[in-house]
């Protein structure tokens, strides 16, 4: 494929390859304007921003309907963006959206201990059926309190389905905002968490629940 690659590189070819890079400012301007113009034209189905937090960089993705994904550092950005491209739309682009701006401000307040619940429009499309019911029940657990898997399964209408409830929580697309970290194993111990059990323990101690 790269037929003439290095075999016959003369001085001209070498200097052609060494062109000076455009200044970083040019690239930044293009990026910023692209997000703005693409957004204004309605070409972006999922906008996302990275947000620095005590847990590390959190990825916040949103559609027109609202916040659709909170990606924790342990999940890896590639995996989160890939999931959004596959399950929502490949038209994923960095850029702001009202719900993301609101979520970022509220996350800062939450991590400072100044906020106990989130008030952001949510897009639930990445979870459905019983799993969605479990997450909706989870969203009602108050700050600083915890529940067991069996309790959220019961609240979601299927008391025996605590394993399925565990799966729902393990695949929560909106961690922190939908506080699945407040659901604990009944035998003690914090249990699994999409963002790692350390992150879960940290959130619980922030809320004074651990």
């Amino acid at each position: 494929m790269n037929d003439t690659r290095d075999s016959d590189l003369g001085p001209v070819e070498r200097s052609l390859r060494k062109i000076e890079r455009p200044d970083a400012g040019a690239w930044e301007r293009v990026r910023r304007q692209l997000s703005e113009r693409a957004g204004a034209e309605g070409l972006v189905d999922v906008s996302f921003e990275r947000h620095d937090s005590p847990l590390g960089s959190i990825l916040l993705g949103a559609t027109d309907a609202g916040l659709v994904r909170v990606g924790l550092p342990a999940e890896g950005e590639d995996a989160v963006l890939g999931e959004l491209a596959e399950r929502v739309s490949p038209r994923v682009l960095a850029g702001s959206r009202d719900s993301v701006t609101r979520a970022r401000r509220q996350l800062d307040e939450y991590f400072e201990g100044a906020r106990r619940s989130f008030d952001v429009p949510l897009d639930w499309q990445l979870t459905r059926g019983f799993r969605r019911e479990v997450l909706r029940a989870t969203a009602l657990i108050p700050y600083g309190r915890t529940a067991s898997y069996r309790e959220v399964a019961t609240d979601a209408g299927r008391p025996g389905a605590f394993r399925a409830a565990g799966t729902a929580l393990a695949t929560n697309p909106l961690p922190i905002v939908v506080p699945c970290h407040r659901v604990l194993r009944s035998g003690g111990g914090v249990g699994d968490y999409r963002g790692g059990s350390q992150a879960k323990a940290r959130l619980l101690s922030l809320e004074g629940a651990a």
Partner: protein
Amino acid sequence: MSIEAAHPARDRLPPFERVVELYGPALLRYCAAQVGSERAEDCLQETLLAALRGYRRVREVGAIRSWLYSIAANKAVDLHRGHARAPQPVEDLAPLGASEEPAYRGDALWSKVRELPEKQRQAVTLRYLGDLSHSEIADVMETSQEAARRSVFEGLKRLRKEVSA
């Protein structure tokens, strides 16, 4: 890294963000070589917007790169035309070609590339700024692989002559 390596699932489109990150910087250099550094940002901007408009219709992940360069090549032509039509202040009326600034500062060779005949300029730019293979260049220029190879070769020959002259 190619987009296939970054996204092994060939049938699924990667997030557009990754396309921008992966190919944007090289496309910006390509645009600069085609239309000059002053209009390079516009050229890239229009290219990426057009790409995003058509992105969901892309069927082959492996063809994304040459598809992007085809769009950029068309946008560059549009910008040339628009620029020729637009009324220009007097100080802009210097003769085209020799007096135009190089693609990016400090690179006299690239100003020579911009003086090459259209096909050679395209082919050399795609080859050395876009790092495209001859078959990708052929796709972008809608010609045969052989013709693409020839255009690169002829362009280089001419540049060598210029440089040694």
